[in-house]
């Protein structure tokens, strides 16, 4: 007898729309949530080109988080300008992050980085993950501006290096609730902004997400002259 499926499943597509060039990238995401809250994202990102990075990119990411949105393990693979750039596996624990990888630039490498505690978020560079950093937001705190440490797979805004471990920090500000309309529909969202004041020349990155799944709805980042919008969404 076929046993009933217990996991939840949702998927969608995000388009990257350049102010001057129109659609310049796209991201397909597919998420399963196990009965215990374990969440796995599969994302495929294509970047055609941009006004600040003249690199075509293909990125594959599989990222698993626990019920508290803490990263468990991840795989990141990138091709740049149709050529292999890197393939890396990450594992997270209480006080450490490790990475085993092979990149066109560095060859075979093994990293183990000690950290204060279990990393609260991981930036693997799908824009879905830009929003998922916000699972680290402490809603019990009245502070509208919060900071926490994070791990990134690349320090570049396009993610076109490594992939390997980089330590970084999140600074986020909460701007309140907003109703946002994108191609996939109209959503009641939370509006956050990353001020990004540490990097000279960077403008704030605005993010809007909906619901307890932190469903990506929209990002606007003037630095890349790009709006990222949810274009398709399906449940089940």
């Amino acid at each position, binding site marked *: 007898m076929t046993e009933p499926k217990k996991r939840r499943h949702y998927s969608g597509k995000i388009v990257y729309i350049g102010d001057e060039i*129109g659609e310049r990238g796209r991201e397909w995401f597919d998420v399963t949530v196990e009965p215990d809250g374990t969440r796995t994202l599969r994302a495929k990102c294509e970047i055609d080109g941009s006004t600040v990075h003249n690199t*075509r990119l293909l990125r594959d990411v599989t990222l698993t988080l626990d019920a508290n949105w803490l990263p468990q393990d991840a795989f990141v693979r990138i091709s740049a300008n149709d050529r292999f750039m890197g393939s890396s596996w990450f594992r997270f624990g209480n006080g450490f992050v490790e990475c085993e990888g092979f990149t066109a630039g560095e060859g075979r490498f093994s990293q183990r980085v000690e950290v204060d505690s279990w990393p609260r978020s991981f930036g693997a560079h799908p824009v879905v993950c830009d929003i998922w950093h916000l699972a680290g937001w402490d809603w019990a705190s009245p502070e509208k501006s919060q900071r926490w440490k994070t791990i990134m797979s690349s320090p570049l805004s396009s993610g076109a290096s490594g992939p390997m471990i980089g330590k970084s920090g999140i600074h986020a500000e909460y701007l309140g609730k907003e109703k946002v309309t994108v191609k996939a529909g109209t959503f009641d969202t939370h509006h956050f902004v990353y001020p990004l004041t540490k990097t000279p020349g960077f403008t704030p990155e605005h993010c809007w997400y909906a619901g307890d799944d932190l469903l990506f709805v929209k990002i606007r980042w003037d630095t890349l002259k790009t709006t990222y919008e949810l274009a398709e969404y399906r449940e089940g």
Partner: protein
Amino acid sequence: MITTGQNRRRYSGKIVYIGDTTGERGREWFNITVEPDGTRTLRSQVEIDAAEINKTRVLREVTYTLDARYRPLDAFVRITVDDRFGGSSWFRFGEKEVECEGFTAGEGRISQKFPVSAWPKSFGPHPVVCDIWHLGGGWDWSNPATRQSWTAIMSSPLPNGASGPMIGHQKLEVDYHGEEKVTVKAGTFDCKHFSFVNSHRPGAAAEHMWYTGDTDIQFVKIRWDYSRTTYELVEIHDWADGKKV
């Protein structure tokens, strides 16, 4: 408007696993990109509800890249067994060794290096798409023999792949039966018919496989009496055997 277009091909589809007595008991989504140099990446998600021979539910994630000759380059395999973490492992292939770095519920953190005498011809991370892709790197069309064999690297020795993932090796014995026209839910296809002899698995029947295409080795159907299951292609999108759609 795309100003700097992507040069790769991409196609996708879905396969269902139909048990003789249970009906649909699993499904597999595949999404494939092929770069201009022939490098091929499969993203596969597999759900097995239950099996006739393995009483486990499985969720499997595979991202697997091969070169233009269908030789394995690197792979990620993650399995969840009965809704619990089973393992997460990364594989890399070369002409002198295969390595695996992983973490599994049973074994903890693993690091494997497995010496090989030549670049492995094929890798079995257990999506049924990959059962057929063994033939891409392994079968030698310049050889007139209709039975050929080679050693493949596997991520698990179990039929449902629900262990590890870690390096194992297995000798494949394969028979070629000729060309056949096969109809499945996704359409009617001109196929090549092969079977794995499965002499390593006592009591196991041969696994029969049908694929179409010359460039893309596209899964159409598998029938395996041992698992009392027929695996059929039910959807395929944007596929034109080596041509960009």
